[in-house]
């Protein structure tokens, strides 16, 4: 039920993000979703890609520090209140969101929310109990 996310350490300097995208493009890896967190000195790029093994290897060969994390992809209706309904059920169950990002596949249909939880299994259980569809990794990589 979990999704593999790769994360990359980036110094805040011009061209570093382009170096990542060039590496992925040359490796023939497609990006499904991404988020970039930054501080004054460095950033962390989080990616969900079509082939995380291949992506990770190509990035490491090019000298990047790459990490792997399990995240959860949940599907909600793309309408007002969609995200809020999920966040309130998590909050009622005392589940903390470390970070999240989202993307819409096609406007008006469904949105995909990527979550990083402190207690991942418990979070999945809670979401499923409330009828939220969790997108399995394989499905997400190949959307």
């Amino acid at each position: 039920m979990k999704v593999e996310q790769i994360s990359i350490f980036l110094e805040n300097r011009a061209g570093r993000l382009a170096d990542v995208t060039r590496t992925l493009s040359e490796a023939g890896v497609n990006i499904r979703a991404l988020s970039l967190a930054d501080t004054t000195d460095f950033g962390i790029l989080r990616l969900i890609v079509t082939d995380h093994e291949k992506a990770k290897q190509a990035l490491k060969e090019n000298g990047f520090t790459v990490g792997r994390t399990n995240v959860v992809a949940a599907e909600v209706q793309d309408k007002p209140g969609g995200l809020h309904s999920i966040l309130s059920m998590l909050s009622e169950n005392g589940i903390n969101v470390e970070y999240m990002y989202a993307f819409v596949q096609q406007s008006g249909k469904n949105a995909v929310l990527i979550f990083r939880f402190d207690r991942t299994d418990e979070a999945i259980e809670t979401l499923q109990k409330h009828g939220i569809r969790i997108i399995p990794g394989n499905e997400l990589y190949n959307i």
Partner: protein
Amino acid sequence: MVFDVQNETMPRDELESLQLKRLKYLAGKVYHNVPFYKQKFDEMGIKPESIKSISDLKNLPFTEKQDLRNNYPFGLFAVPRESVVRVHVSSGTTGKATVVGYTQRDVDNWARLMARSFESCGVNSTDIVHNAYGYGLFTGGLGAHYGAEVLGATILPVSGGATKRQVMLMKDFGPTVLCCTPSYALHLYETALANGISMEDLKLRVGIFGAEPWTEEMRQDIQNKLRLKALDIYGLSEIMGPGVGIECIAAQDGLHIWEDHFLMEIIDPETGESLPPGEKGELVITTLTKEAQPLIRYRTRDITRINPIPCRCGRTHYRIERITGRSDDMLIIRGVNVFPSQIESILLETEGLSPHYQLIIDRKGSMDILEVQVEVDEKLFSDEIKHLQNMEKKIMSHIKEFLGVTAKITMVEPKTIARSEGKAKRIIDRRNV
């Protein structure tokens, strides 16, 4: 004016025979009271009685900072611990610090040498001395403090930190003399201006600056900005503390070393050979009068040269040039001695850190900035910002705790730290001193 006319202006031949007399006594004293020296003398086949002239000094063993660490804490004391009235500690490390003990007579001598030093800078009993050297285990604060008291000046034991309050006190109390590191003097100046205090509001006329390297250009800058005479002071805790040497206001050209208490030599740091007067090399000092912890031929690692030309101030004690460098990799950051190996061991003790780091030292405005760059490898990396930031804070607080300096920690990508011939270049000093 001269504080101690008899000793400070003693003719050279008398001064040199006094040195020889004291050296002979010292050699016997350390041989019989300090096992470390007895062993060294025996290994080299030297008897204290074999010293017949000052030139025999070159046959005696050197003492290194590491010898002080190896005999931590009180192993080099030449008197029973009960006779020691004070202990100072230099440059904290992760394990072994350098400890220095003083008898009552050592403390009195030190105060009198500091009083000489003050007077050499034109300070007298009517002055008010703002002492911003740190008080505590560091020798700077207390060293200057007791010297000013012996001179009869009014001392303000301000110590370091709380800069804004310091400039307020300077405005209200009207000190005429400022003691601190040269970079802190400029920081005080900037803080004063930022708080609406101009130099006309102050009464400073003399600044006694030391504990870190500075240049002639920096002296001019300080003199122009703070409107005072800036003088260089030399000292190191292993030998005594501040007041081993001082510039005189008459010449403002090199530092008189108090040769009736300290026997100096210049050596080639590579070979250990003595160099003739005027040659540049490493300063080596033998403490002629210390009771608690006398040192034979202590290698200061400071690079300078001896100037034997008589000084216009009338003092007969030779001068050394402003310290121009070190023969080891010690860094002086805001007056604190830092060895790169100390930072390395702190980093290596911090879980998850790769051995690749780089130290960048810069001077922003007047303050030294130490930046520690650490490579982020997979073990350290996390997809959460807070984990990396916590690691930065952890390293910062370890460095602060063990070394007493604030460092900026920067996480960098692997392999960004330049490696030359497979070895990383560890230190980049961008300060122009």
